[in-house]
């Protein structure tokens, strides 16, 4: 091996790498370690071509019926689907690495030609340790996200186009088939889906109403107490503040369970107390009446959520310059005018992004609904669809997935919908962090 640099030879490196991943690195660029690892990767991929083909074919056909075989040996559509997805992800990684290899072969060759010498051992080592640090550091995270986030999300998007549901299409006894837009029609077209479509409309409306009310009620309750506790005339503000933080500190699930029991119609201490003082003669159906349950849900959510807003608003209020208030006092403004023209707009300006993200969070607030009412009380005409009167989209998805009869395919239609609803919020969040970054530079 000579150290003479021949540009013509080096220019072949990217071509060689295009023919076989890593070949250019080994033959021309003297990057033996990297080259051999890449070549091994491609070899493994080539050796497993029949497995790759089988998995991709399985993803398309979702299995062939074999009623003659014992259940254990029959095609399992869902496993085939997950396998197919895994193979697609691995292929995607393979092609990205392939493209990157060709690109880096070209870049390295040009660098060697320009410097008229191969990098010294020390340079190679530095380069290698820097590169391998970046690759080794990011790989576990990328693999875990690919397997536990990307594949599951893609899977549930795919299921929406199949008939995967109880009782007739549950593997391994039966196969699952692609059915196109069938499930979307069932969910969204009233004349086609019947009870499903009407359940969907009522759940969707309640999801929006819930998100609006729960976000703003907590925010303004928090705002109110933040402002009141800033008032110099109130005694012991610190005591109130400390105690008001408690609902935020206690695990939410536990508070919701306790509330569900406090509001229990027959045995709950709230009704028993009211009856004890003869304020009511019959128990109030806090959680068993469709309308009352919605009101209770929003009220309990205020109990849980107002401290968080209170804390944030308090800290954003302390950031407002005192001179603004002093100047306005000199101009003769009263407390209410100060609040309206200084405190409120400044706090809103600061916390608007947070409010928007809280709104998105409440659309997905599974815990509040599921632990307090479990979506109930159930309604007569939507019993077959499992949608209760306080169910929001996300808790309905959970019920359709976990309760029998499992309606995985319809749950996936709703998941796609939630996905679409959340995209604007995700984009908003992304643009915001990006602009935030740029303004700092």
């Amino acid at each position, binding site marked *: 091996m000579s150290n003479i640099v021949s540009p013509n030879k080096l220019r072949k490196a990217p071509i060689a790498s295009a023919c076989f991943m890593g070949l250019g690195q080994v033959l021309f660029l003297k990057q033996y370690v990297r080259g051999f690892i890449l070549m091994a990767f491609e070899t493994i991929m080539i050796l497993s071509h029949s497995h790759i083909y089988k998995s991709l074919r399985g993803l398309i056909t979702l299995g062939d019926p074999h009623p003659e075989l014992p259940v254990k040996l029959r095609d399992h559509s*869902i496993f085939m689907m*997950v396998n197919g997805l895994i193979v697609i992800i691995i292929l995607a990684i393979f092609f*990205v690495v392939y493209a*990157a290899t060709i*690109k880096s072969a070209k870049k390295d060759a040009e660098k060697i030609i320009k410097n008229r010498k191969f990098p010294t051992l020390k340079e190679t080592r530095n380069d290698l*340790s*820097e590169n391998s*640090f*970046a690759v080794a*550091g*990011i790989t*576990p*995270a*990328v693999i875990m*996200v690919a*397997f*536990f*986030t990307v*594949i*599951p*999300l893609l*899977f*549930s998007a795919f*299921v929406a186009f199949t008939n995967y549901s109880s009782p007739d299409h549950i593997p391994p006894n039966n196969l699952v088939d692609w059915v196109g837009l069938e499930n979307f029609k069932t969910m969204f077209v009233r004349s086609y889906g019947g009870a499903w479509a009407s359940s969907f409309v009522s759940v969707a409306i309640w999801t929006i109403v819930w998100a609006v009310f729960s976000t703003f009620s907590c925010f303004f309750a928090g705002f109110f*107490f933040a402002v*009141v506790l800033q008032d*110099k*005339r109130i005694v012991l503000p610190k005591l*109130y503040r400390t*105690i*008001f*933080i408690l609902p935020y*500190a*206690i*695990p*939410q*699930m*536990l508070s919701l369970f*306790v509330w569900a*029991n406090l509001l*229990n119609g027959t*045995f709950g*201490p709230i009704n028993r*107390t009211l009856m*004890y003082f003869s304020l009511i003669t019959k128990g109030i159906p806090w959680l068993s009446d469709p309308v009352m349950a919605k009101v209770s849900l929003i009220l309990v959510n205020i*109990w849980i959520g107002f401290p968080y807003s209170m804390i*944030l608003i308090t800290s*954003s209020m302390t950031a407002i310059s005192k001179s603004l208030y002093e100047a306005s006092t000199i101009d003769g403004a009263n407390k209410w005018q100060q609040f309206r023209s200084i405190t409120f707009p400044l706090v809103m300006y600061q916390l608007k992004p*947070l409010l928007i993200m809280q709104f*998105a969070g409440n659309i*997905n607030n*599974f815990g509040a609904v599921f*632990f307090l009412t*479990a979506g109930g009380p159930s309604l007569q005409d939507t019993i077959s669809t499992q949608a209760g009167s306080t169910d929001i989209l996300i808790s309905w*998805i*959970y019920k359709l997935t976990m309760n029998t009869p499992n309606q995985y395919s319809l749950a996936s239609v709703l998941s796609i919908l939630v996905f679409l609803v959340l995209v604007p919020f*995700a984009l908003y*969040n992304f643009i915001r*962090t990006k602009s935030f970054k740029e303004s*700092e530079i």
Partner: protein
Amino acid sequence: MKTNRTGSNSPAVVILTIILVIQLLLVLYPIAFTIGASFTESNSLASTSIAPFPKHPSLYQYRRLLTSPDKMVKGTTDKHGTNYRVWYLNTLKVACMNTILTVILCSFAGYIFSRFKFPMRKTVMASMVILQMFPSFIGMIATYIILWKINGLNTLWGLVLVYSAGSIPFNSWLMKGYFDTLPKDLAEAAYIDGATPFTAFLRVVLPSAKPQIVFLTLTSFTGPWMDFIFPRLILRSDDKKTLAVGLYEMISGRANDNFTMFAAGALLVAVPFTILFVAGQKSLLQSLAGTGGKE
């Protein structure tokens, strides 16, 4: 400036104070009731006294929780204990493993996103922002199958994998944001002294990101305590359950049988939790203000 001082008994202040006191009682009532219920000997919700003090205080519910299921509760002949202690330990294990894994994965990933160039960097980062928006339980069937394939069902490490993988998009983005604000020459100075990127990261960069790592530790430690969906999906046998599932199954649909025991179990979690929260509150608030409040 203090012209209002003289009016400290003005009607507005009286009304506001009344509202504050009412709110104080509303906040404290469920807590007081739960404490009272946990010291009630009888099991049912109906038997709790409406004033938040039990008529005959007793430690029976705590004894019942802390006795293991193969033994009889002290003082009774037919009442079995529960797996509560096992659940507590399981949850603690999951929380610790999750913290370690999350801190390692996300501080590496965040640092590399912030400082290194690699193929598809922009694409990976943009997809992280989008992915962190979605509740990971939307894909729970596929998660279940993948865990089944790697023998991770009904194991605590399977649950830990799901938790830490789910938190990577958000947390590595968070860490990246913090590393972006640190001066770049920090690691470069270490390189000149002969450090490799790895040792420079461990010795120089990581210590300077301590506040954010404290925040990450706190959130990834507290997260698993009350998560319910994934443990319910993944953990099947009673001795593998975490607290959230154990407590949920204790009470769901059978409130009238077990409410007082649930109250005792809830308090045994909530008290250390609240103390931890108050202790970590400062770091939590700083990070919240840094990530959410700034424009």
